[in-house]
């Protein structure tokens, strides 16, 4: 009855490609809205800022070769689409001849590693706290303490991060204050390197968790209060089920459903990095890269990161659409 149908898969895949195509097209159109040669304009702007751009002549040539900027707009468009869909994202404006896809490939693993772990921890802790806050049987003492954990969410993030660096890195010297791994280590699958990566990740991850779990917690609290008033919760009690079972299988199991959509979207947005965190901790991920792109006016780099974001968000939506019928039986592959 709820089997995955080919039609559903095709529709969802269609949606997936449509999203990516639309996003790529917008990225193509926006710089062309300004009059003149976009590449020359960008290079000129850069030169005006920093005086001299190394290899600017070659860069302009490379761009022309890539886009055929002298050709008619539809030729440019087709060329652009072809290169972008093969993740050929062009040269970085600020650090030619580095290619954008290579810069992204360097930064991506750091961000994905840090943010996916932090997001999932934050999701689990935040939802648990929110659910406990809404649950009538939660001991009063616990219920009094738990909201304190949300107060961190209201502190501006960078202040929190600076505080953590001050206390845990400079004060207690438990963790290194910045970077992703120690100097002089051989990158690879060896213990000293892995240990160093984990040590460097703890403070940024902790900051992200503390700063974002209130978001999950407040959402969950609201959902759980609604769920707790449902008739099936009362019948579950009448059945004499153990409170823990009612809490998990009847309460959380229902209340958490909308949270999964939000989780998928925030996991999809991970490749955008957490600019603030990565900046404060000088963490060499996508957020830091984006920051550099912005301060350096590196339009191709920003473009590349935005395109990656579009692709991963579309992918996350695609995956959640496929998974949702498994977590909520009321959603079937047939309808919608």
């Amino acid at each position, binding site marked *: 009855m709820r089997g995955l149908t080919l039609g559903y898969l095709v529709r969802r895949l269609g949606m997936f490609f449509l999203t990516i195509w639309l996003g790529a097209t917008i990225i193509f159109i926006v710089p062309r809205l300004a009059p003149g040669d976009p590449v020359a304009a960008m290079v000129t702007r850069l030169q005006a800022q920093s005086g001299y751009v190394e290899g600017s002549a070659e860069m302009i040539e490379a761009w022309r070769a890539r886009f055929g900027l002298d050709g008619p707009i539809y030729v440019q468009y087709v060329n652009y689409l072809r290169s972008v869909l093969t993740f050929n994202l062009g040269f970085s404006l600020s650090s030619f001849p580095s290619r954008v896809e290579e810069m992204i490939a360097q930064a991506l693993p750091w961000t994905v590693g840090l943010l996916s772990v932090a997001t999932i921890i934050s999701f689990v802790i935040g939802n648990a706290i929110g659910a406990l806050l809404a649950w009538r049987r939660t001991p009063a003492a616990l219920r009094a303490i738990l909201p304190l954990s949300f107060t961190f969410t209201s502190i501006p993030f960078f202040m929190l991060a600076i505080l953590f660096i001050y206390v845990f890195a400079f004060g207690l010297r438990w963790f290194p204050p910045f970077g992703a791994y120690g100097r002089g280590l051989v990158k690879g699958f060896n213990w000293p390197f892995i240990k160093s990566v984990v040590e460097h990740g703890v403070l940024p991850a902790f900051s992200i968790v503390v700063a974002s779990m209130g978001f999950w917690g407040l959402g969950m609290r609201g959902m759980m209060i609604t769920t707790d008033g449902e008739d099936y919760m*009362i019948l579950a009690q009448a059945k004499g089920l153990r409170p823990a079972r009612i809490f998990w299988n009847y309460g959380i199991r*229902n209340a958490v459903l909308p949270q999964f959509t939000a989780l998928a979207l925030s996991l999809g947005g991970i490749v955008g990095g957490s600019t603030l965190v990565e900046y404060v901790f000088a963490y060499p991920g996508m957020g830091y890269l984006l920051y550099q792109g912005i301060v350096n006016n590196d339009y191709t780099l920003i473009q590349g990161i935005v395109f990656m974001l579009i692709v991963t968000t579309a992918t996350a939506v695609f995956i959640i659409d496929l998974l949702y019928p498994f977590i909520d039986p009321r959603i079937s592959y047939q309808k919608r």
Partner: protein
Amino acid sequence: MSFSQASENARASVSQEAAVLQVCDLRVYYDTPLGAVRAVDGVSFEVYQGEVLGLVGESGCGKTTAAMAVLRLVQPPGRIVGGQVFLNGVELTRLSEGELRRIRWRELALIPQGAMNSLNPVMKVRDQIADAIETHEGKQPARELKERILQLLATVGLPARVYNMYPHELSGGMKQRVCIAMAIALNPPLIIADEPTSALDVVVQRVVGETLLRVKEQLGVSIILIGHDMGLQAQLANRVAVMYAGHLVELAPVLAIFSAPLHPYTQLLIEAIPTIKQRKPLKLTEGLTHDLRNPPPGCIFHLRCPHAMDVCRSEKPPLREVRPGHFLACYLHA
């Protein structure tokens, strides 16, 4: 009025001595900013072994609240402020949560008023029934458990495919019958059925009514049958208790209630039914005339009673047995 022979026999077999449930002076109030809503205000009755006790009255008179109090499931801001509930001699209002949990469902099951939303939307029917069984009887061998659940579904006239279905795949009547199957899963001595046929269309109402009748006859379970559906009451009940504004005003054998009601309110109720056969929710032209937070002194019904006397306005009439088995809270027919 004509009742089926089978139900007539079942009625005769009711043992008058053995009370499964005794409710004494039960009071349940809802705390509101403007004062306590006295939803149930001093209600006493008994349910005998194997009988169906009907509990009728207008919407808002406190039927569900009384039932939930018996189950000790009154939702805040409501709370039981007084009275006792004896289930097979055990005083429920004094039990700890843990003790209560072991008694629930095994001894006292519920067919809830909102059967539409009473099933967990993300659990299959089989898991929800299994939940009730395994909580009280421990882990069961998979094969036996499945057979038992299929048997339960068959008892309430549901096809075996329902076993693997989710609640949203069922019609209203099917959900209602799943709730009935769940209620009889542990063979409890008492089931509270809160408006089991409301919100169903007429044909399905009949099917559910017949299912309840079969359950009653096969299992000999006692049932408190709440509802405005007077046709269903006539079909199933042995005795009927009439509630008005949180008070029990009359309690008598079903025939007496229908053919010779004594309380002026019951008379109004019975007159309001076009025919017994017609299953329509009770609707009187006038509703409650007082605020449940502020009940009048004397007889609870005197503001609407055509026979009200001076004594009715000052002193509350007690529930007395005016004829054998016929209880009445009214100064008439003394």
